[in-house]
């Protein structure tokens, strides 16, 4: 007897400890029961079952698609139960969660479809989809966030710091079915990426009175990559540049021998024949030599510009400047580096009930 009781206890304990897969899928069957109740026009039962299915959490909870379907059936049920306010609240919840949802026209009666369409048009909201983890080259590439709208309305999209300060306004205007938001990875100056940190793309839906009715916040985590820059090209070497003006050197080299000879003619008589008064004839020769030297000096046109050489040098310098500017531009691009962007789960906030 004692052994039989022990065996029974172990079986019960084992049964209690065993996993229960049925519980993990509990919401879906309950939803199915609710839908059947709706089809049987057991509206009270349907409302209860569907609410029960929606309230289930954890691994047995409804999938997003099942949740959308459950909310639609619940809205239809409440409408048919003449609970218009409740139906409107449920429909609004569905629209905010999935603006793209449209009820099946073969399943729901026109009365429900019309009601849902009216609520949808009166409920401006957007949801956004951004790549979870991506990298862009600031200035040349862009992060794209696709917005889906419940209805045509105006939105304002900004990039803000984690503390709420707006960094850039990405878009301001109407949105119909969908809209792509682009952020090129640059800050408000438009020249450099923002420092590493947490940011958020905030999309504010506005009603017809331009009041903020909903705010979609897509958190971003921005990380800059390492930068390798190119060396700037060296300016043209002096050996490549041609003189742009006639130098003084050749002229002076031509004048110097004449000057030396002229001075020698004037001075040497005093050295060679000290004490004698040399005749003035030497000045004729000395003057002639000096004049010849001056003619030689000016024949080299010292200081005169050389247009061909100036053009040659200008070509070299322009080429160098272009190359330098190109390197500077490429370095600026590299300085921006690759910007890593990690997008978090979008959050939809409702400042006040519409």
């Amino acid at each position, binding site marked *: 007897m004692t052994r039989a009781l022990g065996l029974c206890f172990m079986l019960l304990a084992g049964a209690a400890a065993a996993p229960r897969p049925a519980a993990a899928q509990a919401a879906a069957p309950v939803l199915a029961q609710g839908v059947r109740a709706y089809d049987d026009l057991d509206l009270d039962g349907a409302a209860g079952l569907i609410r029960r299915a929606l309230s289930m959490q954890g691994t047995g909870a409804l999938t997003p698609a099942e949740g959308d379907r459950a909310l639609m059936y619940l809205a239809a049920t409440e409408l048919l139960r003449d609970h218009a306010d409740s139906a409107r609240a449920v429909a609004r919840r569905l629209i905010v969660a999935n603006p793209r949802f449209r009820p099946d026209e073969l399943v729901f009666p026109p009365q429900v479809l019309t009601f849902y369409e009216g609520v949808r048009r009166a409920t401006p909201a957007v949801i956004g989809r951004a790549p979870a983890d991506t990298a862009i080259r600031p200035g040349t590439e862009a992060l794209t966030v696709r917005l889906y709208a419940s209805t045509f309305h105006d939105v304002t999209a900004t990039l803000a710091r984690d503390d709420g300060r707006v960094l850039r306004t990405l878009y301001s205007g109407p949105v119909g079915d969908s809209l792509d938001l682009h952020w090129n990875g640059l800050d408000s100056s438009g020249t450099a990426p923002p420092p590493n940190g947490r940011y958020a793309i905030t999309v504010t839906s506005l009603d017809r009175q331009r009041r903020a009715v909903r705010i979609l916040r897509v958190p971003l985590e921005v990380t800059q990559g390492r930068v390798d820059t190119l060396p700037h090209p060296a300016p043209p070497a002096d050996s490549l540049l041609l003189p742009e003006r006639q130098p003084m050197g050749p002229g002076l080299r031509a004048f110097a021998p*004449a000057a030396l000879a002229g001075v020698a003619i004037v001075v040497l008589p005093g050295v060679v*024949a000290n004490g004698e008064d040399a005749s003035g004839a030497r000045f004729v*020769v000395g003057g*002639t030599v000096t004049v*010849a030297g001056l003619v*030689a000096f000016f024949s080299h046109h010292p200081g005169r510009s050389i247009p061909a050489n100036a053009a040659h040098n200008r070509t070299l310098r322009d080429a160098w400047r272009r190359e330098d500017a190109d390197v500077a531009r490429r370095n600026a691009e590299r300085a921006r580096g690759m910007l890593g962007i990690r997008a978090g789960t979008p959050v939809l906030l409702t400042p006040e009930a519409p």
Partner: protein
Amino acid sequence: MTRAVVLVFLVVTSTAQAQSGWKVSFGVSGGPEIARWRFGTTRERVSGLVLGGEAVAARGHLVARLRYGQGRVTNDTAGRDVAEGEALLGYKARPWLTVWVGPHARTFVVPGQSDRRWLFWSGRVSARGTLFPGRVESFVDLWQGVTGSLNRPAESASGGGAEAGLVVRLARHPVWGRLAYRIEQGRATAVGRRETVEAVTLTVGFDR
């Protein structure tokens, strides 16, 4: 002696002409010359025209030069003939620098008296500078007598001189001209004689 030097030089230059690699040039010159004597307290100044000629032969770094001039210098009271010449052998240490050695002589001939001749063995340096390449050059010559003598009265002598000027060559023609100023002084200190000669010389020559 001058005639012997001229003869030797002509032999050399004519031989040089017969061989390749030699450059030879000839020139004729003329110009006023002023000579001053100082002998004790006696001073005398004469001037006149001196005409002459020269020949130069060069090969590689070696150069030989012969100059000879002759004329008459006078003043209000006296006149005398003058003959002067030099025979130099030079070495081109640089394209612009030549070093010379050789005799340098000048003789004054006074009617009724024996000739008075200065003779120096001199060392000389010539420097050339280009004003217009191949066309115009300036030059400066400096010389100093290593040994020297005066024949009347017979004394040893010292002396030196300088010459500077301009050489112009015609384009595409082997003709050249030279304008030069020259001053030389010989001193026989034992007898108190000093003689200074100045000359402006215009030379026209040609290269062969």
